[in-house]
Every structure is written in structure tokens, then in C-alpha cells.
């Protein structure tokens, strides 16, 4: 791939309608940088987005892209990648899209381990519908639909991914531009399903999980003795410490992606202009 692709080549001319200061700006910039730095080109890249503020990302980026229905972005990305493994497939969504309406697909996409990346813009709130609890909202987070808080523990995306057999599980912060781009880049380069939960603050409706909160509380695993290839270290980070981590929590270097396991390597768009050679064998089977 040509090395002269700049990250701005992945930017469309559409003006984002995200609120000024929205975490999604930083999330998207990091995605574009990571795509460019891994040598991808907009014509060979496919972005899939779901519904919500995060879902608008396909509009603001330049590539082949589909903005789908709520919660089903991962299945779409799966189909794109399997039909043409030469494409770079990146799926983007929010915490509602991925962990609520799409939670079932999330679990199965993780265990399927198709070689693509999944970037979740986690702001712990439903922003586009103007401020209701999301699956990652805190138990006591008060909103119009949960006046006393959801009174349910939030979904732990890291734990879900680990339990489902995730082979690349990471977390980043949209405001830490360099680390975020590095982590997304690693997810792209991972041979399998590269999952990054991005803390992407909502400045309008979430006054708890703010930039300030993440700046103060984030712990970068790189600054500890955490070994991302050690499953026990990952379990401890996810279940025991209660800290908000940034970095690659778990990575299975020997992972074999779905396409490799199943020998899916053809560009299925290429077909002959008649029945394929040998099709008559199919008729003979019925004698």
C-alpha cells in the first residue's frame, strides 16, 4: 500500500454535528491516524457504524462505509471482511449500540474472532436521545428515565470480552490522542478481533464521567508491571482492582483469526459470467 496516505485522506468534507468538545472528535482522529499509519487507503477500507452519536462517524470519514441499523454493526463488518478479506474493516459504535441492543452480537463477534477492529465510543450515556442511562452508566447515575439511577451494575465490556474468548482487549481515552491512536493501531494490526473500548466523554449529558474524571483516575497499564499476554494479569485488572485502565489489557499473540481458521481468502465479488466450472457436478450428485 502506498505510504503517502495521510490521515486527513480519511476525513470527509462533512461538518460533524457532534457537540463542541465531544469525545468522539478525538476518537475519530485517532482512528484516522491509526488507519493511515498502518498503510491503509480509503478505497480499501470499510467502516461500519451503528446508531447514536457514534454512528455518525461514517459520514465524517472518507472510505467505503455503511451506517446501519441500531446494534448490528458488528455482523455487517463480519460479512464485509469474510466476503473480501483484503479490505481493512473497522466497526465503530457506542456503548448503547454495542453493549445494549447489540450485546448479543458483541459476544459472538468476540468469539468468532474475525480479523477486524471494533472501536466503541463509551460515554456512559445515551446522548442522541438527550440523556438516558446506558448499559455502562453507573448504578446511581440519575437521568430522566432513571431518577434514582439504573440500580443495576453497569456492563463491564472488558469482562464480557474476556469471558467470550477475546484475543485483543484494550481501553483508551479519546483525549489522550497519542496513546489512543497507538492502541487503535495495535487493534488494527492484531490478527483477529481487535476490541478497543474508548472513554469518549459526553460534555452535554454526562457530568460524572467527564474529561476531568478520566484524567484523574485513568491508570495506564504500560506504567505498571501488567503483562497483556498473561490472562491472569488481565483477569486481575478487569475484576479485582476496580481501576479505570488505559492500554492493552489482554492480547493473545498466537490467536488464529476466523478467516485463517476457515480458509476464507477469496474476494467473493469476483465471479464468472455464467455458472462456475464444475457446477454440473452438483447436478450429478442427485442421480
Amino acid at each position, binding site marked *: 500500500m502506498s505510504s503517502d496516505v495521510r490521515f486527513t485522506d480519511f476525513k470527509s468534507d462533512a461538518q460533524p454535528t457532534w457537540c463542541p468538545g465531544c469525545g468522539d472528535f478525538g476518537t475519530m482522529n485517532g482512528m484516522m491516524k491509526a488507519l493511515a499509519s498502518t498503510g491503509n487507503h480509503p478505497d480499501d477500507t470499510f467502516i461500519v457504524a451503528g446508531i447514536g452519536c457514534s454512528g455518525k462517524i*461514517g459520514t465524517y470519514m472518507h472510505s467505503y462505509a455503511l451506517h446501519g441499523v441500531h446494534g448490528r454493526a458488528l455482523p455487517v463488518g463480519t*460479512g464485509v471482511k469474510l466476503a473480501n478479506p483484503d479490505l481493512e474493516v473497522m466497526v465503530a459504535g457506542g456503548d448503547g449500540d454495542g453493549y445494549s441492543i447489540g450485546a448479543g452480537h458483541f459476544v459472538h463477534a468476540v468469539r468468532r474472532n474475525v480479523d477486524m477492529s471494533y472501536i466503541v465510543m463509551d460515554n456512559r450515556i445515551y446522548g442522541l436521545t438527550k440523556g438516558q442511562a446506558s448499559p455502562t452508566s453507573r448504578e446511581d447515575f440519575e437521568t430522566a428515565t432513571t431518577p434514582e439511577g439504573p440500580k443495576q451494575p453497569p456492563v463491564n465490556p472488558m469482562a464480557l470480552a474476556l469471558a467470550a474468548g477475546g484475543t485483543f482487549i484494550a481501553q483508551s481515552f479519546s483525549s489522550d490522542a497519542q496513546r489512543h491512536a497507538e492502541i487503535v493501531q495495535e487493534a488494527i494490526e492484531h490478527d483477529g478481533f481487535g476490541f478497543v473500548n474508548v472513554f469518549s466523554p459526553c460534555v452535554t449529558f454526562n457530568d460524572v464521567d467527564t474529561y476531568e474524571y478520566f484524567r484523574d483516575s485513568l491508570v495506564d497499564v504500560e506504567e505498571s508491571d501488567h503483562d497483556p499476554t498473561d490472562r491472569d494479569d488481565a483477569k486481575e485488572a478487569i475484576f479485582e482492582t476496580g481501576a479505570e485502565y488505559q492500554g492493552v489489557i489482554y492480547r493473545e499473540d498466537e490467536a488464529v483469526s476466523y478467516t485463517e481458521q476457515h480458509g476464507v481468502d477469496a474476494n467473493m465479488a469476483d465471479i464468472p459470467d455464467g*455458472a462456475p466450472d464444475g457446477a*454440473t457436478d452438483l447436478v450429478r450428485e*442427485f*442421480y
Partner: protein
Amino acid sequence: MYSDFNWAIGGEAGDGINSTGKIFAQALSRAGRHVFTSKDFASRIRGGYTAYKIRTAVEPVESIVDRLDLLIALTPRTIDENLDDLHEGSVIVYDGERTTMQNVEIPDEMLGLDVPLKRLAEEAGGAIMRNVVALGAACEAAAFPIDNLDSALQKRFGDKGSAIVENNQTAARAGQDYVRDSYADREFGYDLECTDADYVLLNGDEAIGMGAIAGGCRFYAGYPITPATDVMEYLTGRIERWGGHVVQAEDELSAINIALGAARAGARAMTATSGPGIDLMTETFGLVATSETPLVICNVMRSGPSTGMPTKQEQGDLNAMLYGGHGEVPRFVLAPTTVAECFHRTVEAFNLAEKYQIPVYLTADLSLAVTEQTYDPDEFDMDAVEIARGRVVDEESVAEWQADDGKFKPHAVTEDGVSPRTIPGTSGGAHMTTGLEHDEFGRRTEDGGMRVEQVDKRARKVDTAREREAFEPREFGDPAADDLVLTWGSSEGAMREALELLDERGVSVRFLSVPYVYPRPDLTEAVAAADRVVVAECNATGQFADLVEYDTLTRVERINKYDGVRFAADELADAVAAALDDDTTTTEVHA
């Protein structure tokens, strides 16, 4: 003496009924006889009544009838379930040594053949071959040369080794010999003549799967559901030979979205499901249609609503396919009318999907899905398959469809409604599309003018297809007859045979079988030319009859069957005769 022979094996689910029936159907096909099969079955792994039925003749057979000539009964219930169809001289093979069968009473006018199936099977090498002993007994009673059964057993068990094949062939002979020796004085009166013809034997789901591969489908995603699962099972292990792949998704929501992704990547992609799955897929269906993605969605209908009768026949989803989903967006609905049509219409469905960048419902039903039918192999001529991909633009031609700043227009407003399409990887063709209303570039818009342009553009694709394609009905019967019968989908075979029965009674009708529900043929002239019009379909409300009335502004007579069983030729002939005979406008047919 009838020219056709009707055979069945029945017992409990888990008794190997299906596989035994398939072996006998194969033997008949190998003998150069035509075969048409049907199944009575329940949605469970063990228990309940299940039967595999075969109608066979030297001439083509296309329907079931209400007559049974030979029944292998593994349970007393099998006899009870079929009493209405058994007749004087019907042969019933059973094992009187089986505890449950000891007190079975065979009606006096029938011929009971008490054959110790289990004991003879054990002597031949194992009780598991009990049904094969019964097949040997059936060969003797029907005067059917047993070497054809040998050949079918070889096909069925060949991969398990020659010892297994030989044991089965020995077991079959034990059944044959037993009948020959113990019932030497009986005249059965059947003689299953063989011919030199070579036929293939396949069901509708298999024909759809084969049509998909022939028609360039390389990607399938689905979730198992009766009666569509056979499509997925057929493709698995075969589509890979041509670089394709099958994904078993976690649910139907995922299945259609995975297939949608593959289609956006440029593959000819398909999913198959039945009613409950169609309901789940409906939201994404709207996205497929408005993003103008070519996708084939196969709906093998079963009885609804909700879980309904999952193993029973019905054509009840027509309105769901035509109108399902919020908002308004065009789609095509094809309804193959026979097993062979399942192949041809599947190839066509993929061409239509790409030529018009539109979702195509390809709808079969339980009857077609489980019917094994014989055909001349030339019916499936692979050399005749043509692939048309529509307005796909490559790197050379993409410039024609770019704005001045180089942006590609995936939803360009064109005269024929069809926009250009770039396969991802094509330089200069990058674009997004969305379920939001969009402009020519695929970007969200709420501009009223562009909204109207895009809605009209999508609708124009249907007009274009009507002009360019031949959405014709299949014509049978007497074209000059006063009365007209219409069916859609799988009822064609029963009605074709009913034509002959009606003819014997001096009733002559014109019969149009409609494989295209939307866009559909213009039936105005045919309806106007007829004194009376009868629409027969397997549902309670007459969904297709409603369409005919809407199109032609003419009231039609309705024949509706919704007891879970397909039309039999003889009952359909009776119903048509009755509908033409009095002034009632709705005839309900129940077995």
C-alpha cells in the same frame, strides 16, 4: 388399476422414516420412474407420528393424491393416520412380532403382510436394518426389481464400507424372500415398470442451494429454522469449492446483517429463513432496500403466526413480504412454483438483485422444501446460466459518476432509477451509504426535494424492471376456456394434475401459475376474458386473491386451504369444480 403407485412408510420420529423413504425414492428414480415425495412430520426429534410418502409413475408426477397403495407401518398409529387413503387391495407391511403391533387389526379388504422385520434384520446382521427388510418386502409386493434397491443402498451406505452395503442388501432380500415364501398365494396386482431414463432426485431447498451456487452466490449467512435449514446444509461443504463461505449466525438479526455486509463488499449473498426469521429481519430489510444493496432473502414459508405449526404447509407470508417494514420501499418477490423452478428463479433472483440493486424475497414453502422430485438432468443446464451484474462501474468508468471534486455518487438520480455501483477496493469509488434518507453521495439529508427525488428514483427501478424483464405467468390448461384458475408458488403441480381430473369430468379451464408476485404479470386481460376466476392458495384470507382483485377490479372465487397440508390434486379438482358450480365465493378445503 392406476398408472401411479402410492407408497409410504410411517412410524415415530427417530425410526429412520426419512432416510428409509429417501432410499426407496432413490431406487425408483434409478429404475427410471418419476417420483414425487411428501412428508408428514412433527417438530421433535423422537416420538410423534411421521411418514415419508412417495408417488411414482412412468409419466411425471407433480402432486400428492388421497390414495395409498402400500404402507409400511411401524406403529399402529401409522395405520390410523392413513385409513382414509387406504383402499380395497392396499398392502400394509408390519411386524406382528413387535410388542406394539401384536394386536393390530388390518381391515378385511386390505392385504396385511406380517413380516418379522426385526428378526430378519438381526439375522442379516443387525436390528437397525429392520426398515430395509421392509423395503425388500415392499419390492416383492409391488413387483419392483430389487436390484434398483441394491443401487440405492450402495449410494446411501457406500461411504460406510462394502460390508455395510452387503448386509443391507442381504436384509432387503430377506424381506423379499419372506413375502415370496409366506404369501405365495397372494396376488398383489402391482407391477412397477422400469425404464431406461436417467433422472436426478432433489428437493426444493436443494434446488435453491444449487441455483445459488450456479447463480454466483458465494456467501450465505443464516440461522437454523425449519423448513429452511436444508438450504444452509446444502451449501455447507459445497459453496467452499468455489471460494465461498457459510456462516451460522447467532440469530436472524445477525444473519441478515452479515449477508448485507457481504453484499456491500460485492459478493452475491443470501440468507434463508422462515416466518419468525422474516419478522426479525424486517428492520434490516428496510436498510437493505434503502441503501440499495443487492441481497437475496429466501423465505421458506411455514404455518404461522408466531411459532404456528412449524412443520406444516402454508402460504401465509405474502403480505409480510410485500408490505413488511415501516416506511415505503420497493422490493421484489419471486415465488418458484416447482422444485425445478426453485433452481431457475434462484439464479434469476441474484440477477434481479444486482441489476436493480434491490432486496429480492425468494419464497418457497414447506411443500417445495421437503418434496423430493425427479427431473431430467437437462432441466438444470449449467451452460444456460447467465450472470448479469447490472451497473457496476470500475476504475475506468468511475469518473462518469463522480462530482467535480471526485466524490462518487452511489445513489445518483438516473432516468431508469438504477445508480452506479462500485465494489469496495475500486479506486475513486469510496462512498458511504446509510439507512437515513440520503443524497446522491449517500450523505444524510432532510432536504424535501432530494427526499422526493430519492423515493421516486427507487420506485423507478420497479418500472424499469417491468419494462426490461419478462415477469410472465406459466400457462396451462385450455387457453380458450371460459373459466380461469390462478395459483402462485407451490400449488402449480397439484393444479396441473387437477386439470386432467377436471377434464375427465368435462370441466375445461385455463390455468395460470404465477411465479412473480412483485413485480407481477398484468393479469387484467386474462381476468377480463374469463367468465369466472378462481384463485387457489394455502392460506386463510386469500392474500394473492386480494392482489388479483386489486389489480383487475374484479371479484374472484377463492379456494383457501390452511389446515397445514398442501393441496392434493384430487381435492383441488373437487374444490375447483365446486367453485365453478355454485355462487359461493370462498371454498375452504380441509383434509
